[in-house]
């Protein structure tokens, strides 16, 4: 095992360890806290649909399989993991996103017992033909729920315009048709590939003692041979395949998602690139910006307006979304503001104020164990470290941000709109 303690004068310290099995472990003791939060996760999400194991041929699996596997792992030969957590009183859950699957619990008491349950059920797959079939009904309902979600649809419609090949365009849960193709063998195949300690991480924060927890994890990780995973690369065109898409759903007023497709320099964004995007977004569209004032005063947006740096392995987009009676006018105003900033440059005083606010946000994220652990998970999937954001923020200048903003062009943009149903 290799390990190091990473310290920050304001935020405290945490331990980052790499076990001999290859598992990454992040632990932050939060003295005085009542609860603890733990995640056992794998770098495996909905985009990992085509892969090779140990140099073998590339295989493709049905869309939605990572999420399906997440549901099934709770099942154990002797009842399910939820029943075990019910005995300890812990809150347990799991989620799958584009590039990760995480199993989690939070508890005030019985931490050791809960961690044992977590380590055990994630490493003990158990499915039968019958239970796989049963899950298709539950997940089918989940998929249908998302089909009615305008916020979800508007995002995936936009991604569908941006990416022709990359599986980020596919719903995380897959489709009713794709999950019908999932069977017992495919689930095991995916499990054996991605649920290997070298591809996994454990992140913990709260009322714990690092030494004890590390020892418990070392004991609880099963010895398995390291697996070499190769994920397929998807060569998409630089520009989106179309710039506008609309769909009608039961909504009160149009919902929009206006995104700029970006080209990644590496496999994923670095912490510095993420910080630059965050600063750029604040300067373009925060509630202090001239753009926000223009849009609000013209009643073109409301409280639902937000923005995001949406990025993961092989995909990256800057997104503005919200509700508007005229989404095209909003998109136009955003483009005009980007053009203005590119032309006039960035106000130094405003940049300092935004940096100060992002520092405040970072400090506040260390106020709860879940926030800390989710930060750790982000680090685990992007090979970053927990306090990097605060350090990076200090050294980013106007030029770094302007260079990024200049890439937000009309040619790289997609406007996705959900319109109210025609009367």
């Amino acid at each position, binding site marked *: 095992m290799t390990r190091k303690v990473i310290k920050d004068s304001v935020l405290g310290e945490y331990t980052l360890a790499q076990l001999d099995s290859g598992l990454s472990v992040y632990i932050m003791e939060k003295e005085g806290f009542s609860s603890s939060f733990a995640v056992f996760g794998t770098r495996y999400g909905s985009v990992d649909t085509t892969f090779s194991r140990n140099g073998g041929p590339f295989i493709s699996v049905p869309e939605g399989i990572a999420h399906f596997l997440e549901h099934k792992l709770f099942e154990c030969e002797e009842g399910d993991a939820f029943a075990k957590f019910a005995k300890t009183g812990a809150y347990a859950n799991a989620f799958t996103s584009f590039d990760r699957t995480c199993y989690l619990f939070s508890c005030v008491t019985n931490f050791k017992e809960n961690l044992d349950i977590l380590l055990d059920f994630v490493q003990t797959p158990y499915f039968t033909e019958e239970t796989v079939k049963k899950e298709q009904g539950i997940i089918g309902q989940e998929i249908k729920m998302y089909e009615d979600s305008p916020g979800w649809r508007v995002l995936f419609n936009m991604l569908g315009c941006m990416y022709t090949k990359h599986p980020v365009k596919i719903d995380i849960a897959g489709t009713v048709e794709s999950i019908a193709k999932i069977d017992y063998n495919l689930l095991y195949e995916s499990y054996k590939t991605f649920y290997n300690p070298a591809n996994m991480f454990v992140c913990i924060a709260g009322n714990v003692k690092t030494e004890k927890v590390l020892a418990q994890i070392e004991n609880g990780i099963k010895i398995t041979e390291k697996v070499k995973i190769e994920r397929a690369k998807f060569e998409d065109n630089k520009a989106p395949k179309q710039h506008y898409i609309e769909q009608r759903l039961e909504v009160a007023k149009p919902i929009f998602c206006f995104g700029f497709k970006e080209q990644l320099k590496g496999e994923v964004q670095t912490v510095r690139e993420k910080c630059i995007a965050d600063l750029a977004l604040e300067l373009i569209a925060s509630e202090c910006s001239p753009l926000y004032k223009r849009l609000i005063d013209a009643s073109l947006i409301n409280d639902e307006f937000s923005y995001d740096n949406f990025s993961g392995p092989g995909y990256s987009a800057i997104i503005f979304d919200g509700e508007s009676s005229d989404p095209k006018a909003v998109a136009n105003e955003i483009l005009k503001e980007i053009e203005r900033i590119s032309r006039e440059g960035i106000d130094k005083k405003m940049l300092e104020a935004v940096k100060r606010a992002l520092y405040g946000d970072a400090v506040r994220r260390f106020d*709860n164990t879940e926030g800390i652990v989710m930060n750790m998970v982000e680090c685990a999937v992007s090979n970053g470290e927990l306090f990097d954001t605060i350090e990076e923020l200090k050294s980013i200048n106007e030029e770094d941000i302007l260079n990024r903003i200049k890439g937000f062009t009309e040619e790289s943009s997609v406007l996705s709109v959900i319109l109210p149903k025609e009367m």
Partner: protein
Amino acid sequence: MENRVVKLGHGIDGLYIKNDRFNSTLISFHFFVPLDSKTISANALLPFLLSSCTDKYKDYTDLNIRLLELYGAMLSASVQKKGDSLHICLKINLINDELTFENEDILSKGADLLFSMVFEPSLNSRSFCEKDVAREKCKTIDRIEGEINNKRSFARTRLIEKMFGRDPYGLFVYGKADEVESMTGEELYNAWQQLLSTSYVRLHIVGKHLPDGIFENLKARFQNIKRENIANISKAALLPKAESVNTVTEQYAVTQGKLTMGYTCSDNGEGDKALPHLVFSDIFGGGTYSKLFKNVREKQSLCYYCSASAVFKKGYMLVDSGIDAQNADRVIEAVGKEFDDIKNGKIDDCDIESSKKAVCETLMSYYDSASSLDLWYAKSIENDLCSPKEMAEKIKGITKEQIVKAANCYTLHTIYKLLPEGSN
């Protein structure tokens, strides 16, 4: 008792919830006014208007720049129904002074800013400014009309509307769009004056430091405000049992149907008598050990979610689920069976233990979240401020008999189905 309320005036209390574990401090104003169809639209708009600008920061852009300078202080406004009251809340969260770059005094500046929103709004004589009113009216109308965008909460809202009918609890929390549309700056000014003179007021501070003189400041602010007819928020009216179950079906352009079921309770209130009801609704449809999760979702695969929550303060319980339209009757039957089983005492001891443990864990975890502590103490306005820890201790003593007795207080009142167009 861990925390003591400081009486600051007639119907005005302050509460310092000291907690050293946070990097930030939360300061919140809670106002309680009666739920009333005549005032709800104005009252629901007020916190958003008050938090958008002040006399000093007349433009919201300037106000937001001020928040940036205070290390991105988080400002928020909200309204919620609590029994027969409307709970109006304004809060600010600031990082602790010692974590600023140069040990700056931002806590008291943040407190001053929050106070100025409540007491020194941007006015034009005895009216709010036209442009601010117009902006907030648009946003509120969008909030009201946008409810349909989230089908799950929309179905819950429609059930409550249908179930409570003319009872003020049936009102939509943001009021009515046509009333908001015609609202004037003068009307909102009057609503603000009314809020300051008649609401029950609570000021909370959650964190390591109490801003200097904050309670004295609040007292002084109310010195020249005549406080009278303070809202009586102690008891909510009960909805009578339905003679027969009312079933309402509406069709929309959706893929998944939503099924919601509302139950009336023969009792309501707060404090100790609410505890068996909390455990009952948790066993029925709370966590993953609940009867609805285990049997309706897991065993019968009828839905992705199916949960129950009791609102004992008002005396009702709600079950909601996302379903295939064709399964609606099967789900109603399955939910009914689980409900009857509890009423008949068919509950495993281990389920009771699981539920009690989970509820206790949740309560104890509130100490790690400033916003949970804030809401917890805003919830218990009229009893003796039982702490989450004290509540957890009491939960441990709840018996099966008490749970079964609580279950028997509930009767199905209304079923609301939101189904895809063309469903039978």
